[in-house]
């Protein structure tokens, strides 16, 4: 049997000679040989907020993203931040004032699960960059190295979806799929230009059918669910050993251990610096993954897809794991067979962290509608969740799962002015984003064609600059 990570080991050893690209701060007690810390951020964000004008939206209904609601209120944004919101807010001199009568203001939607950029449009073979299907254990690959910033899908997510930040993940062919990247939904020439400054890294894992189908079909491990878990555990054991060596070296110096790109990621997970996002459908498998997290001492930030989360909301709550879900997807494969339209409200109702996600270049344009369907399905079975509470599924909870809730995801003074003005109740099918600000910059305006991004790919093509 081949062990793909052995090949990775050799490659990593070659890279090790150029690994330490940033010297450590001077250690307190001089060891024999000072440890060389490697950069945790070798492809840093170059995103800078675009300029905005102080803007007051008055007479508007506000969902603050953390469950708060202000009717007929006002919100002021300036210098890229939320300044104030309430029943009445004074507009500073020179501020633009928007009459929000009949409209709604919410935090920008954050999609915790997207493949924009790594499975971009057009979906031609040359663009299939989301899965490293050459081996089931690939914590070494980083989705950001696949992201094509000119994917036209980003602009649709902005203009039709009100999406202001999103996590781009590797696919689910592999048990360890690699590192996702969190982006601001602001067009840029480079991936780094979109990268959410200071967002923690993630690790994509996948349980269930996909890995065993891809590799079992090649007569390779994993060919079964039990092999999924066996390979994961074996890999975590290596990661623990790697972490022990590197922790010791970074503390005491001496001879540097061999560096492996993939194990750097797993060490980051075990150190609590990198957040685990696990593709998992079935309840029984999620329970196993939560035990595995305990076995090796890490935490799962979110189960993605989580089609059967409604069967174990008590466990999810106790383990403080978020569930990122669709409203009504079901039946496309065996592990999605038990999908129900009440999954989201049932998870919420049990007190577990609830997120609406897309995993889809079309679905990301209507996450508000997905939440609306789930909300209504819940109410129909007697689970009465308010509209403003349901908005936590779309911005604050995904921000929490991504480790950026201290900066965005809700409309609190001092936080990033990632804001959507909707032309009606955003849970209505008849409502669309009217304006979208990211860090206070107006980047979409339905009433102004010059505030509509057009990707490089679409320039000079049929339909360029259309409303889409």
């Amino acid at each position, binding site marked *: 049997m081949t062990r793909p990570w052995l090949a990775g080991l050799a490659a990593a050893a070659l890279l090790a000679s150029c690994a330490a690209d940033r010297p450590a701060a001077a250690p307190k007690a001089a060891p024999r040989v000072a440890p060389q810390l490697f950069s945790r951020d070798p492809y840093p964000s170059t995103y800078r907020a675009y300029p905005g004008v102080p803007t007051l939206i008055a007479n508007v209904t506000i969902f603050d993203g953390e469950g708060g609601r202000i009717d007929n209120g006002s919100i002021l944004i300036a210098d890229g931040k939320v300044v104030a919101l309430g029943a009445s807010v004074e507009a500073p001199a020179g501020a633009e004032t928007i009459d929000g009568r009949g409209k709604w203001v919410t935090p920008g939607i954050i999609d915790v699960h997207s493949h924009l950029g790594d499975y971009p*449009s*057009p*979906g*031609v073979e040359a663009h299939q960059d989301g899965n490293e299907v050459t081996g089931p254990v690939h914590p070494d690959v980083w989705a950001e190295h696949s992201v094509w910033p000119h994917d*036209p*899908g980003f602009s*649709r997510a902005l203009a*039709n979806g009100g999406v202001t930040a999103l996590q781009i993940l590797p696919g689910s062919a592999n048990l360890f799929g690699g590192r996702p990247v969190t982006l601001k939904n602001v067009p840029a020439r480079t991936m780094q230009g979109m990268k959410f400054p200071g967002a923690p890294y993630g690790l994509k894992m996948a349980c269930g*059918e996909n890995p065993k189908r891809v590799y079992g079909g090649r007569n390779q491990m994993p060919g079964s669910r039990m092999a999924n878990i066996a390979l994961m555990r074996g890999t975590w054991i290596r990661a623990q050993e790697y972490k022990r060596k590197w922790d010791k070296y970074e503390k005491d110096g001496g001879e540097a251990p061999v560096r492996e790109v993939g194990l750097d990621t797993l060490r980051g997970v075990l150190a609590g610096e990198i957040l685990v996002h696990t593709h998992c459908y079935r309840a029984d498998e999620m329970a196993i993954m939560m035990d595995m997290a305990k076995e090796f001492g890490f935490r799962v930030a979110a189960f993605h897809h989580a089609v059967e989360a*409604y*069967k*174990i*909301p*008590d466990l999810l709550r106790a383990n403080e794991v978020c569930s990122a879900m669709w409203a*009504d*997807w*079901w*039946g*496309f*494969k*065996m592990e999605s*067979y*038990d*999908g*129900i*339209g*009440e999954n989201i409200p*049932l998870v919420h109702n*049990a007190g577990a962290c609830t997120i609406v996600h897309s995993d889809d*270049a*079309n679905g990301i*344009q*209507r996450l508000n*509608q997905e939440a*609306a*369907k789930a*909300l*209504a*399905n819940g*109410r*129909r*079975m007697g689970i009465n969740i308010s509209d403003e509470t349901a908005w936590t599924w779309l911005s604050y909870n995904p921000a929490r799962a991504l480790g950026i809730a201290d900066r965005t995801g809700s409309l609190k003074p001092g936080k990033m002015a990632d804001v959507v003005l909707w*032309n009606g109740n955003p*849970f*209505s*099918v*008849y*409502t*669309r984003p009217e304006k979208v600000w990211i860090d206070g910059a107006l980047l979409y305006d*339905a*009433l102004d*064609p010059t505030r509509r991004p057009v990707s490089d*790919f*679409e320039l000079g*093509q*049929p*339909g360029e600059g*259309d*409303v*889409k």
Partner: protein
Amino acid sequence: MTRLRRGFVGQTRLLALAVAGLLASPAAAQMVAITGGTVALGDGSEPIAGGTVLIRGGRIVAAGRDVAVPAGAQRIDATGKWVTAGIVAGFSRVGLLEVDAVDETNDVQANNSPFSAAIDVAPAINPLASGIAVNRAGGVTRAIVAPASARSIFAGQGAVIDLGGDMQPITRARAFQFVELGEEGAGDAGGSRASAHVLFRNALREARDLGRYSGIAGGRSSASPGAPDQRDLALEEIPDNRLLTAGAARPDDVLLTRFDAAALVPVLTGRQLLLVHAERASDILQVLALKREFPNLRLVLVGAAEGWTVAEAIAAARVPVIANALLDLPAAFEMLAATQSNVGRMEAAGVRVALGMINDDEARQVRLARQQAGNLVALGRIPGAAGLSWGAAFATITSRPAEAVGLGGELGSLRAGRRADVVIWDGDPLENSSAALTVLIDGVQQSIENHQTRLRDRYRTATEGRLPKAYDR
């Protein structure tokens, strides 16, 4: 239509949930009046507050504002609710699979079949598929079901079905032939559009030749003296339209099996609709041009993501379109100009557009059609976009798909004489928050319970009680 609707195959337990007063069987000629609701006919007109729908014998007697309720009619009060034509899934694969990725359950495509045009989906429809039950609960009452192409540009013959809970799903078998003439067609044809077009022409040539020699339906001669002329029968009444005689001599240079060639005879003669999938503007124009060469073809365009750019040509050709509602990404090079305004712009140019779900969850999620239609209404408020009025949007998921397959007189609206496919909703059916409360197909009340509703009820409380969950039902 010679087939009469059967009696309801009832499940007593489910019927206990029925709205009091609705009939379990259409056989009785009892008049039923659904009163007080907001009525949407599905014919493109706007909703009617406080309307009445009269049903008798599985058919609509009358519907609208000033409909008198005859004495003795059973009354169903729908005050505060919406009463509409049932949703017609415009392009789907409903009933052809249970789980997409479980091959044994998936009859959409036959990758290793020797046949293409001859394939007929009707015997593969499973009326007990979860996709039928779930979408029925979502207010979908009929579906246009097409096979998918595999090794030929011709996918085979599709059917119109109902989503009732009985064992007779077919409304019209062999309602159309489905062919791929875009990117997919190029792939099916060996690698180019040029090859797809020559294969198409060759196939129709072989059909023409075969039609001359044999007594195939739609061909020029009868099968045998004394037998009824097949041209006088509805296509689906012909036991096997694909090859009636053994004496069909053929030239040597044939590519199609006799079955496949024979299946194309009614297409050639215009007795069977031809649904053509094409997305790119130039592909669409090539499809329209086929009419010059084959004047009897009765075309329906499927897809047409770039249709808005050539909408006047489509309108002039009077070819209806079954389009995806919300494509707005250049997901393929054949749809660079995709926009959610496609449907609205085509309609504005005079094209008659139905919504379908082309290669997009079309076997299990056709219930999403009403959300899609609602989004088309929303577009009307975006400057530069083209939306639809509520009534026009609702027609794209009711009467328009029925009309596209030639069944507008039979299905898809609440106009008098149509089959009584009626849904009572708890609110505006295009809104995200609304759901179907009562679903009638041919006037027969249907169960809206299914695997999903049962799971929901079992896990209303997730933790175990006195016994394991498996005892909880």
